[in-house]
């Protein structure tokens, strides 16, 4: 059967049980039209060559057992606005008041009753822009059907970070959330996302950063071994604006994190980083990044590190597109894997496409085993082999964690990682 037919059948099957939620009607209908025109992705699509999307596109979410641990919540020592969703359903009791200085916070599901002009304008807009030159149908699916999410409007320097906490309580939950962040000129906000969210989670984040604004994003995806997630972060950044995003992924059967950034203003800075630790042949993790430079003197960095063992699979597809006229662009991309055994696999597709003649772009991709000399050096100082391996593993991930601007957040993640490794044995 032709792929087109397979895709339209799959799309039809997926849409059969879904109805468009109320609110943002035009945007949702447009997104649905985009989706139907594209069809859901198929493993024969070039963009899905290394990651089979079948379990992300099938009608029902595959079951995912819950992961229990006695650790406290992430970032608990940090003063933040907690917004809790349990299997995608807002939990008012567990959440803080949706308020902080310098920022207004609204739930997406309330937008139907409120006239939030900027949200109506932004919703689905960056997602739609991000559909060319590469199609991202699962994001369009989300724009059409997302049940909830959060709208964050930073009008000044937000007094504390906003933490979306995604709890997973139902082994068959299938959740789509869509959040918007608008950062006004000179404003600044930090968004934290933590937790697994659901058995299957489809998340879209659209981030619009105005001139001299700053957006910080730190995410730790849940450790449920069987969860699946596809996430898209679409960002548009203007003159001298800063965008920084970091994601930690440990466990999860399938994760595809896409980040699509348009640098539309001069002197803009965009950093995207990820650290991933995968153990087992049912671990598959995919970072797909597309950064477009469309202004002068932009700086972009992609720093992705993956530690893979026992047959885990890591994928990196990263692209820097420098449009004609985007002179003095400084683009950097590094993707590295540490393969702790011969069963694990890292598939990398770095791409540069450059139409300006005065730019500095570099990319590198490596796969390697643990450094035996360093291991012996540590052992010779009395550090047991396993602890030495853990120390070197954390050291390998360090460069990506350094992309987090806030030290307290970075330290929390580092300590978690150390703890997870120490407890493994």
């Amino acid at each position, binding site marked *: 059967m032709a792929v087109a037919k397979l895709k339209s059948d799959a799309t039809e099957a997926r849409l059969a049980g879904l109805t468009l939620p109320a609110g943002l009607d035009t945007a949702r209908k447009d997104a649905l039209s985009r989706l139907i025109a594209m069809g859901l992705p198929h493993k024969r699509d070039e963009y899905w060559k290394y990651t089979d999307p079948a379990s992300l596109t099938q009608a029902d979410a595959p079951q995912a057992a819950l992961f229990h641990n006695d650790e406290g919540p992430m970032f608990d020592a940090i003063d933040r606005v907690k917004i809790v969703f349990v299997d995608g359903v807002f939990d008012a009791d567990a959440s803080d008041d949706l308020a902080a200085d310098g920022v207004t916070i609204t739930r997406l599901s309330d937008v139907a009753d409120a006239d939030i002009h900027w949200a109506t304008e932004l919703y689905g807009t960056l997602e739609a822009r991000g559909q060319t030159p590469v199609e991202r149908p699962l994001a369009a699916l989300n724009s059409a059907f997302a049940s909830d999410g959060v709208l964050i409007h930073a009008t000044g320097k937000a007094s504390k970070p906003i933490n979306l906490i995604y709890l997973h309580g139902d082994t068959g939950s299938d959740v789509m959330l869509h959040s918007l962040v608008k950062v006004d000129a000179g404003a600044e906000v930090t968004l934290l996302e933590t937790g697994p969210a659901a058995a299957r989670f489809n998340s879209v984040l659209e981030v619009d950063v105005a001139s001299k604004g700053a957006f910080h994003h730190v995410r730790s995806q849940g450790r449920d071994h069987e969860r699946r997630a596809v996430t898209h972060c679409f960002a548009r950044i203007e003159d001298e604006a800063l965008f920084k995003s970091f994601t930690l992924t440990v466990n999860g059967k399938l994760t595809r994190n896409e980040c699509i950034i348009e640098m539309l203003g001069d002197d803009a800075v965009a950093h995207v980083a990820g650290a991933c630790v995968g153990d087992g042949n049912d671990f598959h993790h995919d970072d797909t990044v597309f950064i477009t430079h469309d202004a002068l003197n932009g700086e972009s960095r992609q720093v992705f590190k993956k530690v893979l063992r026992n047959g885990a699979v890591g994928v990196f597809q990263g692209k820097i597109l420098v449009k004609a006229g985007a002179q003095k662009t400084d683009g950097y991309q590094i993707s590295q894997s540490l393969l702790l055994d011969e069963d694990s696999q890292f598939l990398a597709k770095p791409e540069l496409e450059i139409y300006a003649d005065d730019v500095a772009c570099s990319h590198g991709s490596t796969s390697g085993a643990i*450094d*035996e*000399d*360093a291991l*012996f*050096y*540590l*052992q*010779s*100082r*009395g*550090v*047991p*082999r396993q*602890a*030495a391996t853990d*120390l*070197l593993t*954390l*050291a*390998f*991930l*360090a*460069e990506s964690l350094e992309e987090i601007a806030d030290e307290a957040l970075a330290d929390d993640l580092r300590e978690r990682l150390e703890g997870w490794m120490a407890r493994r044995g």
Partner: protein
Amino acid sequence: MLEIKGLMADLQGEDKTILKGVDLNIGAGEVHAIMGPNGSGKSTLSYILSGKDGYEVTGGSATLDGDDLLDMEPEERAAAGLFLAFQYPVEIPGVGNMTFLRTAVNAQRKARGEDELSAGDFLKIVRAKAKDLQIDADMLKRPVNVGFSGGEKKRNEILQMAMLEPKMCILDETDSGLDVDAMKLVAEGVNALRSAGRSFLVITHYQRLLDHIKPDVVHIMADGRIIKTGGPELALEVENNGYADLLAEVV
């Protein structure tokens, strides 16, 4: 303290014998030097004693205070009190020097059933010892050996030795790559650690280091064996005449 009897070893996977029966006996508090031409097996001996992969012991024994070293993992040898100052200290990007030192000290304490040092106590000790070796705060913060000069790397080795307080220290060509001042500084660091309960095995090409670290016994190693043992005067003889005469004597 360190007793090596008839130690024989091959390079793993290759039919190449490197140690052909080494005998060496170092008493408590003694400083022994091993000199010898390139390829005589000096560094290999230090690696085999500390447990590096890639070698196969085919005969003989090596014990530290009666315990069979060859039967232990490298970290167990360290906890038992063996220390190797590397000829080429390894760079470890991403691991802070301070973290590295504290992890090592506490791992050894734990292996010996002692309490781990608190962060405060550790800091106090390391700062004092670092000062003696002219290691500044920046070097302690930077990743292990990354971007260190040759001299800084060797001083860092001695700092580790000072922190870990081993009883048997092996210095593998610690003088290589050092200028005269740096060598003096390193030698002073080593001398400060000399005590009745601590022994040293100093591997070197040149007599110069032995002007600063005075050995009790000097061994000449060639072709995988100790071919001659004597006092400090033996090192001077090598310095003046080279190895050719000594090698000729044996043949």
